[in-house]
């Protein structure tokens, strides 16, 4: 029963992290070997756990509730221990693992793709100085991502969630001496932090209303409330939206997607890891994991769907005008994540997870292929490339597989999952969203083939492109493996053999069946993909029309400007930061200087100032002191003469002077 050892899966890379950090120089490949071993162990263990779960081979005592809403009859393995608790808490905080089918899927995807990326890194980072740091951070990243996946409660998930954010900061800013990289790292950290705050507030709200953070327990409570017709949908919607806020940040959804394209400043392998296997999937996974919050909150689901749809459309439109090969892929990632959110929002739980899996494979493939190109060209600019199909055969073939997979052409993986999403959106009856989804499919085909034509077709447009060479086998081997997966993973979820949908599901049976409508939609999605392909061919290969003709004048020009300026969102945020935040900071600064410091300085200035005045009394001139003595003595005399007798009524006979008159008895 390997499932009992599932907690070890994140432990391997997490142990490798300090070892590589401190002893990396002594390990072959600057610690890369240890990272590979650790991730490979995690992958093997994930496979064994998957085998256990598919065969229902779970420990009887620990197998959790046979849930109804959470996938009928899906056995869940859960094991946890108390971490901390104080009297008066509704339930103690715990750490533990939860293994169900969704977890298995994520474990396989994350560990397998991470493993291939780390192997690829051996070649890609061969000339890098700081290899131990790179491999240590990569190991930490993979470890916390695996930990995030197996976590059994919101708190543990949030801890790993934040660690993922930290690792993305470290890795995006890996070349921290480059100002752009440092800025991009900060941007990624800060923008995702906006979502993290919402997520944290959501967790607090969940704990307040359910008294626990355990996924299973909350699910049970919601089910019980539903059965007793006592479900507070408003509160549920709020919680779901707050949790979704976290996912918006991490998965780079509109309007927090701005960090992801800038995150391309990191090493390309890091981009592959963040954008294919780990970080951005965390947001989608979070929504899927807490789907029990969403499923009975229609407003929250609709919000998720719309955010996803808008993100998919906007990102795809921005991808069409980029010249940096990595940025095209980055916007493509945002767009595909939007697809996943859209699917989740319209109830296509398994479709979304299916797309997540397929996207992970083909996007990792494309990022690594891009890395291979960048490795041999030393530039990201597609205008410098061209004609690489002859120079880099393996990269060319594998990239082509990835491009066809993402555009959704039969029979590669992207087709099956994207088609299923479109079918689900159609069945939800939301036509604007269906329109967005289909338009995005068209855009996707266009920008992907644009990338393909600019990079591989035609003649070399620069010396570097002319002298490009194929990458070593340590880099091409992972490409070939990933291409194999990108081509074939779709077959486990076809409408005729929905093995995947039966494995990962959320109470949705028979919806994904094959009928005339889905056949029509299939035709539609392939059709728009082919149109996009043809348009890219016309503009960038045959060149019978130049894109410059369109963007030089008229409405196209303003649209082009709008898109190249990223819908002015960065401007908006910058203006917001400059005007509102900076204004508030200045107000605070003024308050600090004038009021708080003013009070402190005022007191000290008052003391110093009064001291300045008083010190004139101490002139150092003896004669002044003598005057003081004389005046004091005169005052004493006056006191004795008049004040004391006047006070005698008050004081009684106290100093015994009441009847003493100094002027009497001297024989005047």
């Amino acid at each position: 029963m390997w499932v009992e050892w599932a907690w070890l899966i994140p432990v391997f890379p997490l142990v490798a992290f300090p070892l590589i950090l401190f002893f990396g120089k002594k390990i072959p490949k600057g610690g890369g070997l240890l990272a590979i071993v650790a991730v490979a162990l995690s992958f093997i263990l994930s496979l064994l756990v998957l085998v256990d779960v598919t065969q229902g081979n779970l420990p009887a005592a620990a197998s959790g509730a046979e849930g109804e809403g959470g996938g009928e009859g899906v056995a869940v393995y859960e094991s946890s221990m108390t971490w901390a608790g104080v009297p008066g808490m509704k339930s103690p905080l715990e750490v533990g693992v939860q293994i169900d089918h969704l977890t298995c899927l994520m474990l396989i995807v994350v560990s397998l793709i991470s493993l291939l990326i780390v192997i690829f890194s051996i070649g890609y980072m061969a000339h890098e100085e700081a290899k131990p740091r790179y491999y240590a951070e990569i190991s930490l990243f993979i470890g916390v991502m695996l930990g995030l996946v197996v976590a059994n409660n919101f708190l543990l998930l949030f801890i790993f969630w934040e660690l993922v954010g930290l690792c993305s900061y470290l890795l995006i800013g890996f070349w921290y001496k480059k100002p752009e990289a440092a800025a991009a790292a900060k941007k990624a950290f800060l923008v995702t932090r906006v979502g993290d705050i919402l997520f944290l507030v959501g967790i607090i709200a969940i704990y307040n209303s359910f008294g626990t953070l355990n996924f299973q327990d909350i699910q049970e409570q919601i089910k019980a409330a539903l059965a007793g017709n006592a479900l507070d949908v408003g509160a549920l919607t709020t919680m779901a939206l707050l949790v979704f806020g976290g996912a918006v940040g991490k998965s780079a959804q509109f309007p927090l997607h701005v960090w992801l394209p800038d995150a391309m400043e990191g090493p390309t392998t890091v981009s592959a890891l963040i954008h294919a296997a780990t970080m951005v999937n965390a947001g989608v996974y979070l929504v899927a994991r807490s789907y029990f919050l969403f499923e009975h909150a229609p407003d929250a689901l609709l919000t998720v769907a719309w955010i996803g749809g808008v993100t998919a459309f906007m990102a795809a439109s921005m991808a069409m005008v980029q010249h940096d090969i990595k940025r095209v892929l980055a916007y493509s990632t945002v767009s595909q994540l939007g697809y996943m959110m859209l699917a989740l929002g319209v109830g296509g739980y398994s479709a979304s997870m299916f797309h997540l899996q397929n996207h992970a494979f083909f996007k990792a493939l494309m990022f690594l292929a891009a890395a291979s190109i960048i490795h041999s060209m030393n530039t990201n600019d597609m205008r410098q490339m061209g004609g690489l199909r002859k120079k880099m055969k393996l990269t060319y073939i594998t990239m082509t597989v990835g491009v066809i997979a993402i555009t959704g052409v039969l029979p590669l993986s992207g087709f099956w999952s994207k088609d299923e999403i479109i079918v689900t959106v159609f069945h939800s009856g939301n036509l604007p969203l269906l329109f967005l989804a289909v338009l995005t499919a068209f855009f996707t085909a266009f920008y992907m083939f644009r990338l393909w034509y600019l990079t591989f077709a035609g003649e070399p447009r620069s010396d570097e492109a002319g002298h490009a060479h194929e990458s070593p086998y340590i880099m091409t081997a992972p490409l070939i493996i990933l291409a194999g997966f990108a081509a074939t993973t779709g077959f486990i979820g076809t409408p005729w053999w929905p093995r995947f949908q039966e494995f990962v599901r959320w109470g949705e049976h028979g919806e994904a069946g094959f009928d005339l409508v889905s056949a029509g939609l299939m035709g539609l999605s392939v059709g728009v993909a082919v149109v996009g392909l043809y348009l890219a061919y016309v503009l960038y290969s045959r060149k019978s029309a130049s894109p410059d003709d369109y963007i030089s004048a008229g409405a196209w020009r303003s649209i082009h400007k709008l898109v190249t300026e990223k819908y002015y969102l960065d401007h908006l945020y910058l203006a917001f930061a400059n005007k509102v935040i900076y204004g508030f900071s200045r107000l605070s600064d003024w308050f600090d200087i004038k009021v708080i410091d003013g009070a402190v300085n005022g007191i000290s200035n008052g003391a110093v100032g009064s001291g300045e005045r008083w010190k004139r009394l101490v002139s150092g001139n003896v004669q002044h002191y003598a005057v003081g003595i004389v005046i004091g003595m005169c005052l004493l005399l006056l006191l004795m003469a008049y004040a004391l007798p006047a006070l005698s009524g008050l004081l009684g006979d106290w100093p015994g002077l009441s009847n003493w008159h100094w002027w009497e008895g001297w024989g005047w």
Partner: protein
Amino acid sequence: MIPLSAFLVFSAMLFCIGLYGVLTRRSAIVTLMSIDIMLNAANINFVAFSAYSSPFELSGQVFTVLSIVIAAAETAVGLAIMLAVYRLKGRMNVRLLKELKW
């Protein structure tokens, strides 16, 4: 017999003259002299009171002798300080001693 008040008025005048000298003159020598005048005013009081209150005990006179001795000692010390100041500054002005204020 001369009334006591005559002595007291005289000594008060002496005291005020001495006080005036102390407060106004800059020369250390004059200041010391003025202080002696004030002391002597007090001495006159001693003697006068003694003579009027208990004429046969001489206690006031004894006090006065004591006071004169102490005044001599005080003048000696004062002169010594002033000599030191003179060596330091080349003048004998009490206002030169301002540095001692802190």
